[in-house]
């Protein structure tokens, strides 16, 4: 009988644990929706990089399909026009006009300023990370869920993310990104939630280097547009054409 009670208690604890994990995952899924829509859409990202008093601006056009495929084309400055980044699930290629050939690259490689390739190309935290609810905290006056996200596979941009999601609206507010060594790499702050393709979503991200606070990048997303893309648009073989 004692054994039966023990087994039932264990099962109950297991269920509790499973349900907490599931709800943490649902929070991340809802926050992902507030970071960017699913389906087929395009938008622009204006990136303002600041580094030790110096600054530069870049503009990218992002085309995305179901958060699995993305094509990022650099529009500004003119000397970098024609640079493209293609993501197919966990694979990433860079195309530059001077080489005229797609080159396989990694998500963690730097795109501009503090922005890694994966920061623009891959925004699907719910699929990439296993979430655990760490508790609740107040951030910028808002009560938030604090979540620990651990990479589900080795192909994602970061090994660990600590993520703050507002409790009431399930908006992402802040994320800290960590390397495999446990070293904190950078902090992203999400803001300016606006009505975008039928739902309130963030339109601004500020990324600050963890060690050198004078290094930061501000990304402003605009011109969101629902599109009809075929998967073939996101083919490596179509990249140079």
């Amino acid at each position: 009988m004692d054994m039966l009670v023990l087994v039932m208690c264990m099962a109950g604890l297991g269920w509790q644990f499973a349900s907490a994990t599931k709800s943490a995952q649902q929070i991340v899924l809802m926050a992902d929706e507030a970071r960017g829509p699913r389906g087929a859409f395009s938008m622009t990202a204006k990136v303002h990089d600041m580094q030790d008093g110096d600054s530069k601006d870049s503009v990218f056009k992002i085309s995305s399909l179901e958060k699995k495929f993305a094509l990022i084309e650099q529009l500004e400055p003119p000397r970098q026009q024609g640079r493209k980044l293609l993501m197919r699930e966990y694979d990433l290629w860079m195309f530059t006009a001077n080489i005229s050939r797609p080159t396989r690259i990694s998500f963690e490689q730097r795109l501009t300023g503090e922005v890694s390739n994966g920061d623009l190309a891959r925004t699907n935290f719910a699929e990439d990370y296993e979430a655990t609810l760490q508790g609740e905290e107040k951030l910028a006056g808002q009560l938030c869920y604090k979540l620990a996200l651990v990479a589900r596979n080795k192909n994602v941009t970061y090994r660990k993310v600590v993520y703050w999601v507002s409790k009431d609206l399930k908006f992402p507010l802040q994320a800290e990104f960590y390397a495999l060594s446990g070293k904190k790499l950078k902090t992203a702050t999400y803001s300016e939630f606006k009505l975008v393709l039928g739902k309130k979503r963030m339109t601004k991200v500020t990324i600050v280097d963890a060690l050198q606070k004078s290094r930061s990048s501000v990304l402003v997303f605009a011109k969101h547009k629902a599109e009809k893309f075929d998967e073939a648009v996101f083919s490596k073989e179509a990249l140079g054409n």
Partner: protein
Amino acid sequence: MGFPLLFALLLVCGQPLFARSFKLNYEGNLKADFAEHTRPPINPAAETLGASFQQNAAYLNNWTAALGFSAWNEFVYKSERFSGQQAARDDSHDVRVRNAFVQYHSNRLMLKLGNQQVVWGEAFGFFFSDIVNPKDLRNGLNHDFSDIRLQMPMTNAKFVFGNFSLQGLAVHRPQFNLLPSPGNDFAFPYQKSLAMADVQVAREAAKPLSLPNQEYGVRASALMDGLDLALFYFNYFDRMPWYTVEPHPTSLVLQEHHSRVNTAGLTATQELNGFVIRLEGLRTAGRALPVIVPSGLSSVTLDNSVYVVEIDAPAWNKFNFGVQWSQDILAHAPSGLLRPKTDSMASLHLQRPLLNSHSLELLYTYDVADFGHRIQAGYVVPLSKSVESRLGGEIYSGPLASQFGQISQVSRAFVFLKYFMRH
């Protein structure tokens, strides 16, 4: 010029015929390259001015077209120092039609007809599997690869099925590498090797347009669980020449010839924990290579294999770097061959972004077979949103008989300016 003119007509007049609406844009650049030799005698190595321009038209019913030209002038080879040398005549200027194609693009099919470049391969910094288009090697390798490649008229069809693709290629008028002429900084030391004071090279620039001269290629690629794999086969005229000696009263005239070869190859790339691993392997059958014989110059037909292994490491302290190992192996090495049986190269490439959007680039190559070195270093400084400058140096060194050592006098410091135009 017949095809480009017809094409230009199509580009302008075809718009109302083919499309309900269309979009035009252009891209181009102006270039200036100044270099000074760093080994005695210290004198100008390059004073090049160049321009390229391309008009693109996109028709909303899946058709696009492009027409581009480029031109450059190398003033150093026009100077008194090069008077009477072949380089002064053949390597001092160039005017060329670049891209000139029409393209149909649907979800699964891409069909491109006209002057174009097709790029195969994965490895960094060299042209191992990049065998389709000939290269203009008259100004060395320290330039954009898309500028070095020479576009050719071809039909290029590509079918894409999710993670798989199949490409078929027909080159209608094969063209060949433009090698540095005698007198050019980068030229093979003809005079020394052939013990002749005056050597001239008669180029074979292209094969005539005919059915037997057509070239064919096919390439299949697949992306499987992160492994990017491609297999290709190309039946073509070798882009590198072999020579015969032509009778001439005052000089030794080497006539270029290009023989038909078959290349089969494989490329593969995989990302592992932030490391990107690239592999290339090629086998070419029937390559004719020049050999020195007592009576002058002859050729020998050999098969050769090339393999390349490259590892790009994850960024460390904002340094991006990679290492590469390559071997070019001949089936055997008859005496008089102008290259070793096995040519092995080790390379390191490094890039680091610096303050104010500056960046540092370095490519170091060591020829294991003959102990030669090549260093290409550049410091990139954007001067505005549209202007980029590159300051740096190219150093060639090694034993006198080595591939890089024999052109050590080419070593130079350079300033390169590029103005980008796009609309």
